[in-house]
């Protein structure tokens, strides 16, 4: 990090004009403006209209100029109607609770297992790079293949998981039929997928911790736990905080796993917010409602990220 700071002087160069940096950024700026922010504004607008199957063909009249949108749809303007409908529905709170459980459990195990593996791999150990490569593989597996494969492994009759349970004399579990077990199965799948990312981030963080800190802790007679608590954790924190925020957002919005494990038809008893939004939008064609739901998701995630950043700043 010291290194990065030292090299961060700006180039003093006669050729550089005030617009040089902007020219470098321009292409990406257009991508973010036209493919991310414009649709986002559109999404916010859609959330205030009652767009559903009955009037969906009106959307064709908008063309590519989204400014036409309020004009075309003005008869279906309901202001906060969609939001009220969502917030009055008990189903939303149940789904939200499930999403929180899903996200928290996943990120918790991602971080704990990831950091733990990173610590194991960060010592002198023959063949450790072999283990590192093997442990990182879940990251490289396409998510949909992982979801389908785990779905097969959770199969009631022939799935590996039940076969292993049987071997230990435990009753077979109807993983994909019972909603609670489906959630557990999906969480296991997603933990498997997400650990390598946290492991690699933690490994990077660990490698930047100078070795002599541990040596002087040894001289002071610190126990392994004390070293972990007073040297490793505080120095790992700046690396892990952004990774945890990112991980939380990704997990909260993880559509693939539950959607594919339930063959594209997750019901109200297994949906998390993002799968509910996807099904409302693309299976039931309730565009306005789904847009409002995604705005709510966006607000929840933004508030979470700000709060988390703030909480971690204050402690320092």
């Amino acid at each position, binding site marked *: 990090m010291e290194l990065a700071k030292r090299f961060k002087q700006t180039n003093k160069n006669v050729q550089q004009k005030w617009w040089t940096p902007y020219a470098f950024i321009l292409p990406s700026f257009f991508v973010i403006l036209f493919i991310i922010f414009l649709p986002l504004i559109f999404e916010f607008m859609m959330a205030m209209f009652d767009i559903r199957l009955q009037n969906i063909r009106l959307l*064709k009249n908008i063309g590519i100029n989204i400014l036409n949108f309020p004009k075309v749809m003005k008869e279906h303007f309901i202001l906060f109607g969609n939001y009220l409908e969502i917030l009055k529905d008990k189903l939303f709170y149940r789904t939200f609770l499930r999403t929180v459980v899903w996200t928290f459990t996943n990120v918790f195990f991602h971080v704990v297992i990831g950091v733990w593996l990173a610590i194991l791999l960060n*010592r002198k150990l023959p063949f450790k790079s072999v283990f590192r490569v093997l*442990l990182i*593989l879940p990251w490289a*597996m*396409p998510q949909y293949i*992982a979801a389908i494969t785990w779905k097969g492994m959770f199969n009631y009759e022939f799935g590996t998981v039940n*076969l292993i349970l049987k071997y230990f004399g435990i009753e077979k579990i109807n993983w994909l039929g019972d909603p609670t077990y489906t959630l557990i199965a999906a969480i296991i799948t997603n933990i498997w997928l997400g650990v390598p990312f946290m492991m690699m981030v933690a490994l990077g963080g660990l490698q930047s911790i100078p070795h002599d800190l541990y040596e002087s802790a040894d001289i002071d007679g610190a126990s392994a736990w004390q070293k972990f608590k007073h040297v490793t954790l505080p120095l790992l924190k700046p690396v892990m905080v952004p990774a945890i925020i990112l991980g939380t957002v990704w997990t909260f919005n993880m559509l693939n796993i539950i959607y594919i494990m339930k063959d594209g038809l997750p019901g109200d008893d297994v949906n998390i917010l993002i799968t509910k939004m996807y099904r409302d939008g693309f299976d039931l064609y309730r565009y306005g409602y789904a847009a409002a739901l995604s705005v709510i998701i966006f607000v929840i995630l933004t508030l979470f990220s700000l709060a988390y950043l703030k909480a971690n700043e204050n402690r320092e």
Partner: protein
Amino acid sequence: MRKSDYFERTDSKLKIILIYMLLIFMSFIAIYPVLNILSSSLRPSNQLFSTSLKIIPDNASLTNYNKAIFERPLSRWIVNSLIVSFISMLISILFSSTAGYAFSRYRFYGKKSGMIVLLVTQMFPAAMLLLPLNILLTNMGLTEKLWALVVPYISSSVPFSIWLLKGYFDTVPSSIEESAYVDGASILTTFYKIVLPLSKPALAVASIFCFMNSWSEYIVARVLIHNEKMYTLPLGLVTLQGQYNTEWGVYSAAAILTAIPVMIIFAYLSKYLIGGLTIGSVKE
């Protein structure tokens, strides 16, 4: 030969054995699903539903691979996916390397908020922008075309790549560029001829990220593409898998063919990943 040449000085023999056992166990869990598909891809169709836990089944055969390649449109899906992934990757890297460079080297008005905006874009994934993008792309007449997929794929890989590349450029000493300027090189030449070649590892990592992003994307493709001829690999494979009873073995063979090459490249590049991720995510 002293023990401390190979292991930590403070580790006892028991501890080392324990660590190895843990690592072997965790690695096994990490690769087991791959072995699982491998096993069902080798299984002849009359043994599809076996309750044995063997990895290499009895009478293993390659019929499923044969079927996947020659009797199913796998090659067409692969071509479609390759086109989409390569185009998205090239555009993303082109755009994000210049932007990452500007964020790393220059001081300018709006730099800090720019970096924050990049982080904020991670709050809403492609799935969320899908609703409006779907309408816009339909109205532009772009659905059912591979181009339609490139648009959302770029938008989801550009912000992350900018962060990653900026982090790497930060570690490249700017003194090399300065001496190039003294020799009269222009900013663009310096960037192209000096900075980019020096950043090969980071570019490789960012490229594989962008590539994998599109190569394994299912949800967006499901919404934008309905015509079977335009199916990308994920759409094709999920469809294959949907015909559960007959096609599970064929699906597994196709999944192995899809996943293994990416996993090998990824594993190879993973050594560059450690530094890249941390520097990229921590310091702005």
